[in-house]
């Protein structure tokens, strides 16, 4: 369990993260989604006890990251971005080294078990420098899993992998999510959508949305525009839709009409369908325009940038 409560982290005058709050539950994968430089890595560094927060609080596995840093470090498994490793060691030696620093008992058995878990048993005695990028990533993941941590924090684990490796890693993360609290950062939306039980969207150091993938989709679908296709005169249909009181704008877009509501929380679909049918149009399709997280994400991050520009002006 991770609880972040009004957390702020400044480097000098620059606030990398401003007043963020969220939770990550046991037995779930929580996705930490945002563009590069949004504050994902900074937040993770606070949660792993690497860097102290400027203000606010964060609890990891019930321990305060600042007051009880050593306890936090015991319950967290961390895979940093870019996966730093000792290239002169073999995966097995590396795990034995970390295990000794952690003071683990039965290190050999644990090291072998996690290497098997990430599918690296066959290469456990090759020097890390000879391993491929995907294998190195798995060594890093094995290191994070070594002490069977309650909480797993993975910073962009799929970056730089080929599509097949990405798929395997996502599967592994999803599996791990059943036993651990997993916080997983990414800037790839489809990834968050596939793997995560919950998504926290961060941009410019602030959380701009959070919820289940479904809830986030619904949130935008409700406020979104509607696409209408009819059999018959498209321009006439457009005029009918534009005349509706709830409609702000209706424009032609190739073989369909895109309708924007005046009130973004209203659902135009019933009214639009009724009006068109009353005029005798053959209705082919009425659907909400934004249905995937890609749109939500782009819209939310744009909105944020727009707001900042206004602030500056």
């Amino acid at each position, binding site marked *: 369990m991770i609880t972040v409560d009004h957390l702020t982290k400044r480097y*000098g005058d620059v606030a990398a993260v401003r007043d963020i709050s969220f939770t990550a539950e046991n037995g779930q994968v929580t996705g930490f989604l945002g563009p590069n430089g949004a504050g994902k890595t900074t937040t993770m560094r606070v949660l792993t006890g*690497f860097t102290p927060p400027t203000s606010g609080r964060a609890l990891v596995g019930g321990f305060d990251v600042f007051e009880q840093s050593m306890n936090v470090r015991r319950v967290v498994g961390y895979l940093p971005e870019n996966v730093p490793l000792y290239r002169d060691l073999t995966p097995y030696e590396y795990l034995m080294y970390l295990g000794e620093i952690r003071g683990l008992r039965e290190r050999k058995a644990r090291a072998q078990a996690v290497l098997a878990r990430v599918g690296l048993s066959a290469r456990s005695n090759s020097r890390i420098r000879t391993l491929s990028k995907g294998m190195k990533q798995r060594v890093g993941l094995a290191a994070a899993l070594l002490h069977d941590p309650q909480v797993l924090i993975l910073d962009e684990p799929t970056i730089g992998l080929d599509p097949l490796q990405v798929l395997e890693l996502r599967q592994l993360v999803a599996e791990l999510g059943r036993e651990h609290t997993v916080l997983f950062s990414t800037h790839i939306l489809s990834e968050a959508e596939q793997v995560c039980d919950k998504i926290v969207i961060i941009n410019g150091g602030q959380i701009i949305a959070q919820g289940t993938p479904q809830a986030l989709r619904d949130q935008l679908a409700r406020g979104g525009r509607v696409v209408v296709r009819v059999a018959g005169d498209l321009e006439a249909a457009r005029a009918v839709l534009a005349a509706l009181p709830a409609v702000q704008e209706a424009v032609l877009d190739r073989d369909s009409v895109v309708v924007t509501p005046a009130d973004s929380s209203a659902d135009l679909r019933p009214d639009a369908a009724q009006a068109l049918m009353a005029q005798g149009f053959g209705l082919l399709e009425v659907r909400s325009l934004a249905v995937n997280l890609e749109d939500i994400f782009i819209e939310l991050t744009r909105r944020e940038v727009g707001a900042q520009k206004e602030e500056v002006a």
Partner: protein
Amino acid sequence: MSALWAVYKREVALFFRSTIAYAIAFGVLLFMGVLFSATVTQFVANNTSGFAQQLATADMAIVGMLGTLAFLMFIIAPLLTMRLLAEETREGTLEVLMTLPMHDWAFVLGKFFAVWTFYTFILACTLAYVVMLAGMGVPDAGILFAGYLGAWLYGGVTLALSMVWSALTEDQIVAAFLGAATILVFYLSDALALIANGRGFTAGATDFLRELSLVAHYQETMMQGILRGEDVAYFVLLTVAALFVTSVLVGTRRWRAS
């Protein structure tokens, strides 16, 4: 303790596997061997015979050799320590280590004891010259003991002083140069004291500079076979202070943006 021991073992293994470390050891021993040989040859040539002369030869050879080693530490220590922390910072492995349940000081101490162990290995190699001397006259046991104890402590303090810079910068070359400069300041502060005295500085300032000096606590005392508690205390305290600063500097990595 388990963490300190783990870091120590890995680092010692790295030293004894490293070509560069052996190259440094080789260079040092070669240099000292040539000087040792020259000293002995010269004394033998001037020998007017007699047991007393032979003893003096042995003592001079030991003192000369240890003095050379002490002087060379301003090059040796930075070369041995520059990698220790700078590499972990540059490679990013420091971030992994600092999120493990290990205190920063345990990490720093593990590294320090490892490099000190390698230095002890180099120092032990010079005992070969002592064995050679046994054939031509036994050196004074007091000089031998105090000289070697001093050389060991002297090595520790110079390694600790240059290690500070490895914590501060991730550039090994910069760390090495600044380490050499730091050791030279401590080496020369004896001479600085003399200059300060001539320029009319207060007695307090002059004494302070003199007490800071490596030379005043080794070359002028222990190396000559004079064992004083204050010299041992000087080395131990300065080493501990340097390690403390290093540990704090490693800790500041947590606050710095990277």
